[in-house]
């Protein structure tokens, strides 16, 4: 059997595959952040909490309403998106004229509220959510035993990411969106309802987080803390990618998932830290991030 630095090639391929799975979550979450940031100039600290909410909606609708996984996959993003719109209308819209930092602080407060409420209601030990029957079992890829559900995570999140990219870069709606990002006042003058676009963008961005939450529910534990554990890593991903482009944030997310996966083989203790090391490195060489534009 061939080996790379003392690690069997098979094991390495397996870890690469798993890195891709985690990268899918990073990609979806950083994509949501990038879309929101592009339009609202706000770093949405509540993103992790809303991702957690997505998972909880899936759990609750199964537990209380008997709604299964597939409907949750649709329901959770819609509900989270609607909550997002509510947040945007009731709070965020008053902050656009101020320093962008206030948006960060506000959403940080929201994250605390949401997380605290769920902790109060459901405790912290986490709740079980089983993998839907259609996706139980695993593929034998020869080099590894890949659970079908993990494959589904990669497939579905990549599809969603690419659809988002297509919508923003190739459709008329996307063109309006890009115009409104570049110059809101001028776009408004052309008769496009910019506040509406902003509202929908925020709703869509957090809906992505809700979708990721449902995807995560069967694979990870449904727990009130799942969001805050992840959000800081996603922030680092965002700094590395630079949020200059939609495709950039997708690629950065996937790439870092893979780097993290490899670290788990060669130096597992550092696997939670490696993303931050990459961040420092990127900052030293390219302060604007890999795909970012210097303002």
């Amino acid at each position, binding site marked *: 059997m061939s080996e790379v630095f003392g690690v*069997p090639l098979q*094991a390495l391929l*397996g*870890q690469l595959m*798993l*890195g891709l*799975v*985690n990268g899918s979550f990073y990609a979806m979450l950083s994509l949501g952040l990038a879309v929101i940031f592009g339009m609202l100039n706000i770093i949405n600290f509540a993103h992790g909490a809303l991702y957690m909410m997505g998972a909880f909606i899936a759990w609750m609708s199964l537990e209380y309403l008997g709604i299964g996984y597939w409907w949750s996959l649709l329901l959770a993003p819609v509900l989270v998106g609607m909550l997002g719109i509510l947040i945007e209308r009731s709070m965020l819209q008053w902050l656009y004229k101020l320093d962008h930092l206030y948006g960060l602080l506000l959403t940080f407060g929201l994250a605390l509220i949401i997380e605290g409420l769920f*902790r*109060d209601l459901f*405790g*912290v*030990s*986490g*709740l*079980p959510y*089983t*993998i839907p029957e259609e996706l139980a079992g*695993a593929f034998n890829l020869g080099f*590894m*035993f890949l*659970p079908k*559900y*993990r494959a589904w995570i990669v497939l579905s999140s990549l599809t969603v990411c690419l659809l988002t990219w297509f919508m923003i870069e190739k459709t008329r709606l996307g063109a309006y969106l890009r115009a409104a990002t570049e110059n809101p006042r001028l776009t408004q003058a052309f008769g496009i309802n910019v506040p509406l676009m902003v509202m929908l963008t925020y709703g869509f961005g957090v809906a992505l987080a809700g979708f990721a939450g449902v995807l995560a529910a069967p*694979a*990870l*534990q449904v*727990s009130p*803390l*799942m969001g805050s*554990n*992840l959000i800081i890593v996603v922030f680092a991903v965002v700094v590395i990618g630079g949020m200059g482009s939609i495709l950039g944030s997708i690629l950065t997310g996937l790439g870092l998932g893979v780097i993290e*996966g490899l670290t*788990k*083989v060669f130096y*597992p*203790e550092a*696997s*939670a*830290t490696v993303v931050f090391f990459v961040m420092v490195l990127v900052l030293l060489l390219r302060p604007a991030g890999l795909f970012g534009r210097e303002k």
Partner: protein
Amino acid sequence: MRRKILSTMIQSALLSLTLAGGPALAQSGKLSGDMVKIGVMNDMSGLYADIGGPGSVEAAKMAVADFGGKIFGKPIEVVAADHQNKPDVGASKAREWFDAQGVDMIVDVPTSSVGIAVAKVANEKKRAYFNTGSASKALTNEECNPYTVHYAYDTYALANGTGKAIVETGGKSWFFLTADYAFGHALEQDTAAVVKAAGGQVLGAVRHPLNASDFSSFLLQAQASKAQIIGLANAGGDTINSVKAANEFGLTKNQTLAGLLIFISDIHSLGLKTAQGMLLTDAWYWDMNDETRKFGRRFFEKMKRMPSFDQAAVYSSVLTYLKAVKAAGTDDADAVMAQLKKAKINDVFAKNGYIRQDGRMVHDMYLMQVKSPEESKYPWDYFKLKKVIPAEQAFQPLSLSKCPLIKK
């Protein structure tokens, strides 16, 4: 608050006067503040809230009620605080309790950092402290003191119970999945030593960061090791996620998981389908005999969940403490601690338990196996008893203790 400090100071001065005067009469005991105050301190809302939390407060109140509600005709009060897993919150609350509010004894205190911080305060203020919630064996080793009792379990007992019993039943080769912090390392080292001593071998270990979100990659490495037993040297959410991923990746087909620290609440949140077949060491289980079942059901009435061993240990600690106060005829900590180290503990939690000089409460531990969904007949019917680990073998022998109180 200043006035309160003054009054407690005067009272304790008076108390020491009376004590100097002659031994107090047991019938009309001497109590500081004319009452006994018990402080339950734990994590009410965070990671460990389901293991102790409000349930421990309820358990303490049950103990007070079972004791009769009064001592020497004086009231017994239970107060509670949330240390939020922050050592500074825990330590300052403990100081305030001892200094200003006349608390006589603190119980529970999960999270090693807070547990040790409160032990330091108890030693400084000379008050009784029963730790049931923390796993760190430092409490009865480097950090031991005359006022601290480590009541329920520690990493040594967990490692010893699970490690030895599994090797004896044929699980010779081990691989560890270890949380990369002091608790995980201690658990791994202790277990590895036990495994080797019993004739097993350790094939390797992988260290994962605390609160890792995804365990699949670590489990793949465990799978590749081809070890019979995968020892999970982690806790809480990390254990739950490892077990989930182990099932998903089909690891449980050829290998057996051994949880080194698993609470009944973890099994409850995993579900039996995922957790079935796992081996674990438990300090107490509600469904062992009529006495434990009775206690479990009473607790369930109030809390809507069965007690964890921590909550049962809180109940037992409070009862044991009150009995010792009664026997000593005073709530003066030195007298009570001397009494505690003489008495045998016999209640729903422990049979013939006793407190050693290093503060370790020694009692039987239990090797449990998680039932399959078919075997489980009613809610919370989760474990079957595989083996009783006798008290003498369950805990670290005094000869190995690093506690300075032990004279060798």
